[in-house]
Structure formats: structure tokens, C-alpha cells
């Protein structure tokens, strides 16, 4: 036998990812936008590395076993509202990775305390039938308005989502050229409450449309973002669910990155964007590992990108000031996820409501909704809450691995700073309020297990959704369009050479629309003279021809 003292163990047992590596571009954050940018650039021949802090990629595209064991939920994105338009889905051919969306007809239901209900469907005539239960006039108006609004979305708002922002003055000039453009300008200067109460007469119709318009953070009373109303109403009837969970979209994008020679690194928190002579030279990770790259794209929020990673000493005063003034969102969300012993059955007049993708509960008219939201904005939840519920296994049975179990949630708008002791003290109490409201609508709700994610939990899972800001920053006129995140950076280029921004805080915004990532990929490709292997979708090309190019001189 040999003597143990003479034995010297090997320096390393297993070769690991190197301490330093060189790439053409490093992308910080493997959320939807970071991955979209990476996938386009990788296929364009760039050597890209995507770095993700979490152990799993996807950011808001998360599908997690929070109802452990055996049930999978989407704690963040679930309603995919732009799958009809998002260029990456077709350009990258993501269906070859098994990516599939379900877009049911029964889209958004409202259930009311008197046992009536309203159902917004993908098919316009189905929606009109439901509205007619309350008001023939509203039904007719809805049909007429939606014909215009659908054109607005198709011709203007959807294409603009995938092109760099245009200064307001130029935009107005372009819109004035067409009837559709003029119709959009007409709604733009009105608040959501004005638009909806002017058009519709029945309080229940008003409430549900107002909910759909403002649920993602538009201020109901504020003017200036009215151009989003047609989009949000149209999209609430065109939501899609990612089969197998929203994480599938992230996984499909990551497969594209890797199959085109790129790298995806998880459990890799970036702590620094390295600069030399004012130019980006790479990044550094929490464990000291580095990546050298002449191009760095950040999909994080402005505070993380500019103050934490770049450092204020490298910013000019304007940029630093605008980052510090960035406003987080006016409200966050609190969600009670539940395993149910049976599919929820709503006690209302129309059995079709049970099939709705989203069901709004707790509000009968705009006033009750507005007063709830106003409480939320001041940190307050009353003794009655309201929100929207979805039974995910209704369309995607694969999310429950336990026979007979359904997976569902009820989500409410909720303040980040909750009065009366804060979230950790009150989360059980709020869960009680949520379940109470759910049971009012579904009297025989068969709850097997629950898990409530508070706004604090949102930050704990995804720290750059600061203060529970799922879109990385408020939707208000000073933070949209060319102002998102500020005039210097809204095109995705920044004053720091080689640094680009591509997350939800960059034009056009969040909610898994893919705009920031797509626009950033185009910007980098243009700046680096890459061969763009993708072509502009027809609907975008038509918009460019009609609105973006100088009209032929008269």
C-alpha cells in the first residue's frame, strides 16, 4: 500500500467553462428580448453569448413547479398577445422546435355579481352576440369600432412595434396622411375612460373594456397614450397560450442561438459592463469570469444597466439623470396559483364562460374598478379584491402531472408597498381575500393546494422587475415611444459605443411583444454591416411605404 501523504490530487477533476472567453457580442439577460436578439445575430454569423443570472433562461417566460410537486404554472407571462405579428416566430421558424400556441375563441369573460356575464371572443360576431345581452346599441357600436381598430392595429400599431421609434411630430405628420391614421390620432389624445365611456353605454360593457385596456398599466384617466387603446382591446381578443408553458418560447429561442453557434450560460450573473476609452470591451460575472466582446446588449432595466453594471461615472449627466428619474410601474400583481380538483365552473348565465381564457371577477361597473385601482395606487387593498382568473390546464393539460388535478390562478392588481404591514406580513390574508372573491364567482371551487406570489416574490424571482414592475417601467407618456427609456437610448443604441439596450424598458415596451429584441438585432446588424438573412414582413413593409417614406412630391 502506498502512503496517502505521497498522493497529490489533480488540480481539477473536470474541465470547466473558461475564466475568460471572447465573443463578438455578449447579451445580458436571457429573457424574451435578449434571446430574440441573440437568435437573430447568431444566425447572422455573429458569435454570441447570452448570460442569465437564474438557473433557467426565459425571464418572464417562466414555467415553474411552484405548486410542488407535479404541477406547472406560468408565474409571469401567460397571455401572448402578439403571436400573430411577432417577426421572430416566423423568421426563426420556431415551430420546428415544437413551439405551438393555442388561441381560443372564448378569450376574455367578465362575470358579475348578479349572475350575468360578458364574453369577448376572437370572432367579432360572437362578441357582439354577448354584448347584445346588455345593449343592442353597444353591440352595434362594438362591431363598427372594432372594424376601424383592427385596421389601426394591422396597418399602424403592430408594424410600428417592430420598427425604431419615430419622433412624435413626425409620427403625427405621417398619421395625417390616411383615414386610418387620422382615426388613430383621434383616440390618442383621449384617456381610456373617455374613449370607452363615450363609445359604450352599458356599465358592464364599459367595465370589461376598461379592464382590458388598462390591466397592463395604462392610466385610465391619463391622456396621451390613447393610441394603445385599439391595440389593447383588439389584443384582449387575440391572446394565445404557449403550449407546454411560456418557457417553451424561451427554450425554442435558446435552441436557435445554440444551433447557430452561440452560447447560453445560466447561473451567470453579470456584475459589470467593462469599458475602455468609452467603448464597451466586455462583461464580468459574479464569480470573476469574464467575456471579451466589442458589443454588449443589455435586456435589463435602466437602473441595472446604467447605474449597476456600467457605473454612473461613465454616464453623461443627462443620461444619469434620466435613469434616476425612471418611474417604476404604478402597480404590480399578486397572484394566487392553485391546484384544483376540478375545472372551475362559474355560476353565471352563459356556460361558455367556463371555457374563457381569462375571466375578470369582482367588478360590475367602471366606478368599482376605478376605485379599486385607485386604492392599489395608494398602497391599499380593501376587503374586496378583484382581478382575472385563468385555468391553464383548460387548454394545456400537460401542465398538471397529477391525474385529475387542474392548474389555475387568480391575479389581482396590487401595490408594491402594501399598507398595514407589507406583503410578508399580509400575504396569507390577501390570499384569503383572493380565494373569497374567486369563490363568489365559482361557488364550488375545489382547492387542493395554493401558492401565492406577491409583488415581493416577483422581485425575488426576477430582481430587475424592480418594485414588481413586470414591464421594467411605467407606461406613461414620458416613458413611451422615443422616450423609452430616454431619447438617447430608445432606438436601442446608447451613448456608450458598443452598448445597446434591448429589454422591456426600451421602445416599444414589455409584455412579450418581442419588439425591443427585434429592433436591437436590426440596429446591431446595421451598425456592424451584417448580412440580414431575414426580410421585413409584408405588413411592416406596407406600413413603411405608406407612412415612413417621404410621399412623392406633388
Amino acid at each position: 500500500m502506498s502512503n496517502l501523504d505521497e498522493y497529490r490530487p489533480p488540480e481539477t477533476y473536470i474541465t470547466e467553462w473558461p475564466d475568460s472567453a471572447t465573443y463578438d457580442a455578449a447579451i445580458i439577460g436571457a429573457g424574451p428580448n435578449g434571446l430574440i436578439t441573440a437568435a437573430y445575430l447568431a444566425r447572422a454569423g455573429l458569435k454570441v453569448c447570452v448570460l442569465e443570472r437564474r438557473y433557467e433562461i426565459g425571464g418572464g417566460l417562466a414555467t415553474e413547479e411552484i405548486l410542488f410537486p407535479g404541477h406547472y404554472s406560468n408565474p409571469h407571462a401567460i397571455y401572448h398577445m402578439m403571436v400573430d405579428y411577432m417577426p421572430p416566430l416566423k423568421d426563426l421558424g420556431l415551430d420546428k422546435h415544437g413551439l405551438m400556441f393555442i388561441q381560443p375563441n372564448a378569450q376574455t369573460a367578465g362575470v358579475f355579481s348578479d349572475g350575468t356575464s360578458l364574453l369577448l371572443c376572437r370572432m367579432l360576431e360572437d362578441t357582439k352576440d354577448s354584448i347584445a345581452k346588455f345593449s343592442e346599441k353597444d353591440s352595434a357600436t362594438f362591431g363598427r369600432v372594432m372594424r376601424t381598430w383592427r385596421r389601426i392595429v394591422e396597418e399602424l400599431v403592430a408594424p410600428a412595434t417592430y420598427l425604431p421609434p419615430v419622433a412624435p411630430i413626425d409620427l403625427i405628420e405621417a398619421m395625417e396622411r390616411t383615414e386610418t391614421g387620422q382615426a388613430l390620432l383621434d383616440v390618442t389624445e383621449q384617456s381610456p375612460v373617455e374613449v370607452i365611456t363615450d363609445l359604450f353605454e352599458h356599465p358592464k360593457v364599459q367595465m370589461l373594456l376598461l379592464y382590458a385596456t388598462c390591466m397592463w398599466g395604462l392610466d385610465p384617466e391619463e391622456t396621451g397614450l390613447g393610441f394603445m387603446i385599439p391595440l389593447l382591446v383588439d389584443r384582449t381578443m387575440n391572446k394565445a397560450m404557449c403550449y407546454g408553458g411560456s418557457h417553451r418560447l424561451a427554450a425554442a429561442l435558446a435552441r436557435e442561438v445554440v444551433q447557430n453557434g452561440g452560447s447560453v450560460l445560466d447561473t451567470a450573473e453579470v456584475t459589470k459592463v467593462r469599458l475602455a476609452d468609452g467603448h464597451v470591451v466586455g462583461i464580468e460575472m459574479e464569480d470573476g469570469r469574464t467575456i471579451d466582446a466589442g458589443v454588449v446588449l443589455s435586456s435589463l432595466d435602466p437602473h441595472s444597466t446604467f447605474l449597476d453594471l456600467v457605473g454612473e461615472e461613465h454616464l453623461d449627466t443627462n443620461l444619469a439623470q434620466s435613469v434616476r428619474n425612471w418611474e417604476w410601474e404604478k402597480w404590480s400583481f399578486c397572484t394566487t396559483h392553485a391546484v384544483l380538483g376540478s375545472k372551475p365552473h362559474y355560476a353565471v348565465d352563459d356556460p361558455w364562460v367556463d371555457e374563457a381564457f381569462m375571466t375578470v371577477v369582482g367588478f360590475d361597473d367602471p366606478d368599482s374598478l376605478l376605485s379599486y385601482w385607485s386604492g392599489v395606487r395608494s398602497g391599499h387593498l380593501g376587503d374586496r379584491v378583484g382581478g382575472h382568473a385563468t385555468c391553464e390546464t383548460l387548454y394545456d393539460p400537460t401542465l398538471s402531472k397529477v391525474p385529475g388535478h387542474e392548474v389555475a390562478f387568480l391575479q389581482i392588481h396590487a401595490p408594491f408597498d402594501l399598507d398595514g404591514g407589507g406583503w410578508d406580513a399580509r400575504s396569507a390574508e390577501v390570499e384569503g381575500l383572493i380565494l373569497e372573491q374567486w369563490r363568489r364567482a365559482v361557488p364550488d371551487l375545489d382547492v387542493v393546494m395554493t401558492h401565492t406570489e406577491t409583488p415581493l416574490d416577483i422581485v425575488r424571482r426576477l430582481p430587475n422587475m424592480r418594485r414588481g414592475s413586470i414591464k421594467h417601467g411605467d407606461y406613461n407618456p414620458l416613458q413611451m415611444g422615443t422616450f423609452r427609456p430616454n431619447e438617447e437610448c430608445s432606438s436601442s443604441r446608447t451613448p456608450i459605443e458598443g452598448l445597446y439596450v434591448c429589454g422591456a424598458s426600451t421602445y416599444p415596451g414589455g409584455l412579450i411583444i418581442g419588439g425591443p429584441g427585434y429592433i436591437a438585432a436590426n440596429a446591431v446588424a446595421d451598425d456592424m454591416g451584417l448580412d440580414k438573412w431575414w426580410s421585413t414582413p409584408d405588413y411592416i413593409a406596407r406600413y413603411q411605404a405608406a407612412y415612413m417614406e417621404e410621399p412623392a412630391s406633388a
Partner: protein
Amino acid sequence: MDSRYDFVIVGGGHNGMTLAAYLSKSGYSVCVLESRLEIGGAQENAEPRPGFRIDPHASVLYGGAAPGFEQLELHKYGFRMSYWGQYGLAVTSDNRAFVGGNRWTFAEAAETLRPFSEKDADLWGSMMGFIFPHLKDILRSTFWTPPFPPELEVEQTDLPWVKTWTEASGGALPGNFFDASLVDVCDELFETGALKAVTGLGAWYSGAAPTWDGMAAQAFGSFLLASYGSGAPKGGMHTYAHAIARCALAHGARVLVNCPVEEIIVRDGRAAGVILADDASAAGKTIWADKAVVSAVDVQQTFQRLVGPRHVDASFLQKIKDISLKGGSLYVLHVVCKELPRYVGQAQELVEQVGYPGSVLYPCDDWDSVVAQMRDAYSRKTTPTGRASMTLPVLMPTTYDRSRAPDGYHVLSPIYIEVPPPEYHVGGPEAVNRQKEQITAEMLEMLRALAPNMTDSNIVDVYVNTPLDSEFRNAGLVGGNWYATRHCEDQWWTQRPLPELSRYRTPIDNLYLCNQTSFPGGLCLMAVPYNLMHILIDDGLVEPADWWYPSPWHITDAGTRIGAN
């Protein structure tokens, strides 16, 4: 979508994905079909509470000696480690402790045994002294070599692990080492009850019960697997799955999740492709395999469900049905807490001296309690007894990987005990689930006996997966068994899972097996696919480039030995 590939692999767990990486790197078109939402099988993590990452199944890197790390170059796809300082703190019921081992110097670990026994400390030190320089060979000869052709006449001295153990020890092994159980061997070698218990429990939790006859070398090898670069992949086991998957993807493999396979298509006795289930997330539901279909799901589901009785005879199906699932059905606890366990007595003094270990075994006193626990798990009792003496392995990932919990918090995950598999429980498959509250409370009580600070105010959350839960969430873990069929001599080497299947071939031409029900069984070793590669190469289906090297102990069907020592 493409519907024709060279290879179709059913099951995207650790073994299926590793094979996909091997085959795609060899230049073949490969399609992997996984029924779950995510690849990786038991190589997974979950975040049931935001910011806290638990290990529902695999938790420790056992496969450090795998040729796959070099051959597949997993470092290029992000593989990183979090090494343990000390691994395996053994604590007795009277709160004395020693360190089972250490990544860099076993000498230090052996010294911690000295207060228990001068003789054992010297022996443990010298054993590790001869084992460690040969550890890679010992492990590779035991796990990373295909079983010999079952019909071959073989002397015991010709067996690969017999050769490497004998060479390493210089003939110092006990005479009965290759025929005995680990219990016998430890009884002959050691005088400290706790050292015997640590060795036996270490082997047991690594898939080899120390009471199994003829398995002492393999059981001790299982114990040693975790010593080769001991620790866990940085971020948890699922990042290891990511590295493997990204290797496969980078070489062009198609990896489809949410695609349960309904049937393996057999035509003229040959596997030709698969049919997907109706709810599969794919447009084309029939996928053809030009070269082979590889089943990376367990052998019972493969033949009972996917191939079906139409294509195999009744006597074969009976043998498939009789494969034993006993052993490895774990009742798993995950604890979220504010403070790490603070032990008492000499155990706490030792931790303060050498630092926190990656795992703790408590209590490990002697054989009697270990054997009693095995009897509880394997015999046909209505209710397992002996809770008072059950031993908890407690993994403490936050002591070596801070990414697993927010600052100021820790996770203890997994903490487990073995219980009867649902199929064999006299009380029926639901019996253990009905005892959930009671068993969890008893385990927490044991945890408090180890570390009194594990009080209700310290513990923030507790998650549990019973064997039945594990089977539901992960269909590959039949009976919640982590190692599939048990690793006893009846089901090992040329007997695993059956002699006629031991070389990964099946009665169906062009259908191969690549699951832990084949040799060398469970744990994330990348060994089943490595071993299967030899057979695919022998069968002329695969021709890898010069990055491939075979096991020096491999014997082809013609009896020719491949490679050289």
C-alpha cells in the same frame, strides 16, 4: 417539420440527452422526444419558492470520471462546478463526528477518525492512499465499460473491476472482497461502527445496498463515485442537463419536449420509428428512424407499453414484468431555513474546525440501525417502523453554492429516507402518501435532534416529494425509484436488466436501450450512453471521429478485445 432522422431517441432524460450529444457529435441526425415540459429527467431543479432552488432528485455530481466530459467537451457548453470543501460529515447519535472525505486531501479526513479508532484512522488513510491514484480506473472499469457478452466464459480475474481493484490494492484486499457484501467487508476491515455505517449508507444512497451479496466492490465503488471531484454543478443539477442538451443542439440534434411517444413502430421485426401521442406538441405525429430507435425510457415501459405484446413473446414479457423495482424509492424533504443547522457537542467543534460539509449523515452509529432501515424499506411491512433509528442524509447546497438561496437564507435539499416502493407496499400504492404528515414530522424531529436550532421559527418552508409524487411528476422514476431496477447481483452487469438485453440490444432489430434500467444503472454518470456507443459502433451504425475512445475493457461479440491498457 422533418419526419426522418438517423436516430430517434425516446426520452430526454440524462441518458437520452447524453446519447443525443454523442450521436449528433458523430455527425448523425438525431431527434429526441421527451414527454415532460423540460429535458433532463431527474437532473432537475425546482424553484417552488422564489429565489430558492431545490433538488427534487439528483443533487450530487457522481459522474466526474465520465469520459463524456472530455468527449463531449461539456465545458464549451457552460459546464461549471461548485466543489465541496468537506463532504460527508458523519454524526453519531451521541453527537460525535468525523469527516468521511474531502476533495483534496483524504489524509485530513482520515485524521478526524482517530478519536474513534487509531486502527481505523490508519486503515482508512492507507486505503484512500492506494485508491485515489487509481480512482479513475477503478470507477471506469466498474461503470464505464459495456457488460461482456453474457455467453462468454469469464474467470472472475478477467472482470474489469477485479483487475483494477486488485492492481490498485497491490493484493491487500480481503480475500472475499469480490464475493461478499459490503457489510461483510466492512465487518472484516473496520472496528468503528460509525465508519461501517457511513460506508454502507453512502453506498446505499448511491444505489447499492451494503447487504447485497457479491456487490461489495460495486457498492464501495458507488460510495467512491461521489469522491471524484465531489460537489455539484454550479447552479444545481439542471445546469448539467443544460450543458449536455446544448452540446447535442450545437451539433444539430432536434430536441422536442412535450412530445410523449405512444408507440414504437415495428415492421418486419425491425424498429422503424415512433408515433407520438395525440397531445404531443408537434405537427407531424409519425417520426421515422433510418438507423435505429433508442429507448431511453425504462425497460418495462419500453416493452409493455411502447413496443407492446404484439411484437414480443409472453415468456419475455413475463421476465420484463418481474424485473424488481425494490430499492431506491425515496421520501424526499426540502427545507428552507434562515440558519444552517448548528450541531452540538464534538460535531459542532469539528465543523468549526474544518468548515461546513456539503452533506451530513445522521445518526450513523452501527450496522444494526442501517440494516433495520433496509429491512423497513425492502421487506413487505404495512408500515415501516424504526423511525427513531432512521438515518437522514442532509444535503446543504447553500454551503457550497450561494446561487441556491437569497442572502440570509439556506436550503437543505434533499433530505431523504428510503421507503417501500408503492407497488410493493402492503398498504397499497397510496400508503406512504397517506403517512405524509407523520413521516415529515418525524424527519423534522430527527433534524432537530441533529441540530436543535432547526425550530419552527428557523424553518420557513418544507416541501415533500414521496415516491408516488416522484413517479407522477417524472414518469421515468417508476415507483419513485431513483435508480430504476435495483443494483443487486441479479440485475447487474450481464444480468441488467436481463441477460438478453444486457448489451443494450433488444429482440427487436434496430431497437436499443439507453436507460438506467440498463448497466450500470442509476445516477447521472453519462455511462449508459457511453457503453451503448460501443455496441452501436460494433453494429456498424456509428462511426465517431477521433475524439472518441472506447473502454479498454470492452469485448466485442467476436471476443476481440478493443483498445489497450
